[in-house]
């Protein structure tokens, strides 16, 4: 997964502040609920309603989030295009992405894909596994 390397890039002292998780979803209610839940679970949520806003936020961020929770059907730069942009940037390519989707399609399966309505406990489980924060 390359996670140890990725962590070493972060600024010293980050351990004492909650690790950030970026939540990208165009449904405002869902975005805020997931963010509130992640805050309860000890993460610092960052919010974006679409891929374009998310990329801008990541470019500005001093410390990168430890994970991204991504809805695929978001406006402007959609989830697929966002992932492609992420992969093309060496600084961001290693951030684990957990996909949330309402679509039941065969190609959208895997341990990091969760179907909506999402089970919050499952989301936390997957996030912890992806970030190595048991």
């Amino acid at each position: 997964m390359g996670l140890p390397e990725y962590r070493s890039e972060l600024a010293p002292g980050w351990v004492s502040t909650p690790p950030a998780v970026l939540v990208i979803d165009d449904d405002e209610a869902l975005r805020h609920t997931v963010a509130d839940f992640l805050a309860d679970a000890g993460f610092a949520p960052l919010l974006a309603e679409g891929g374009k806003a998310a990329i801008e936020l990541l470019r500005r961020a001093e410390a990168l989030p430890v994970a991204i929770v991504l809805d695929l059907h978001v406006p402007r730069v959609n989830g697929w295009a966002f992932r492609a942009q992420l992969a093309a940037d060496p600084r961001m390519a290693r951030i684990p992405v957990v996909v949330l989707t309402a679509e039941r399609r065969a190609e959208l399966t895997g341990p990091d894909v969760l179907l909506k309505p999402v089970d919050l406990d499952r989301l936390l489980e997957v996030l912890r596994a992806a970030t190595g924060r048991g």
Partner: protein
Amino acid sequence: MMSSSPIVLLVEPGDPAALCALQAGTGYELVVAPSAPEAVEALRRRPAALVIVDLERGGLALAHRVREVEGSAQVPVLFLATREQRPPIEGPRVDVAYKPVDETLLRNKVELFLTLTRLEHLAAMFAGVVGHELRNPLSAIMTSTQLAMKRATDESVKKPLERVLRGGDRMARMIDQLLELTRLRLNGSLTLSRSQVELREVVEHALRAARDAKTRFQVEALGDSSGSWDADRLLQVVATLVCNAVEHSLPGSPIQLRIDGRETGRVELRLHNVGPVLPPGLRDGHFDPFPREETPRPPRGLGLGLFLSQQFVVAHGGSFTVESSEGAGTTFTVELPRT
């Protein structure tokens, strides 16, 4: 999909009057296939809204052959026949026009079938759109309720939230079913995405999701429960059976699940509950997604869920059967070949 004119496929035209009548019709594109292979080829290129065959020219075999083409399993068939012939007009989507054909009558029949196809297509598209649009607000409701549940410390708050979640689960399942039915109706068949699956884990997942503290489940697992199946569809089957059992069990009676993987080629799942006997139609294993008026309405949620479950299992090459009687209760048996 319906952006261009619908296709009417005339196979082996032997009757000049019929050909003439169809050529003069409007609102469709007439494709004439001189032979069966050419008809199959035409259907593979673009599905037809109606296939017309002549009984005097091997129409029956032709009709079977065109319905074997992927995506054309439910294509309507109009038979041209002489008065002496007994056309095989059993079942829906089949009609007959007698020769010598009355041109106006033939065109009217064609128009009727085209209208039917168009309406079915619209209904399916509508269901699909509604399904997708409903999922997002439901997602927000469900996720917010879960968060409220986690934050709530007061039992009197948790209880109603649990009810919201259960209602939401049921609604999410209904949306899934509606979309599956739409796919089935639009494509005429199911495409499975198989992977290595443990039936035991699917059952555990379905029981966790049942969110019912009052019901007792007794689970027995024997042998190897793995196979190459569509995990998502299989979960829908088990979840449907579990939810039905929870809803229709006598209070206090346990629901028994038995996974039997002792045979090499297949795995069997049995689910038994004690409760009211199933209505006659269902008891015979005829699961109709939209029961007709004259048949007694199945208990809530039984119709579509069981119909789809049966379709999913059959698509895996398995069998989906039920036994239900007064006193003994209801037992569903799902048999799945491992590959």
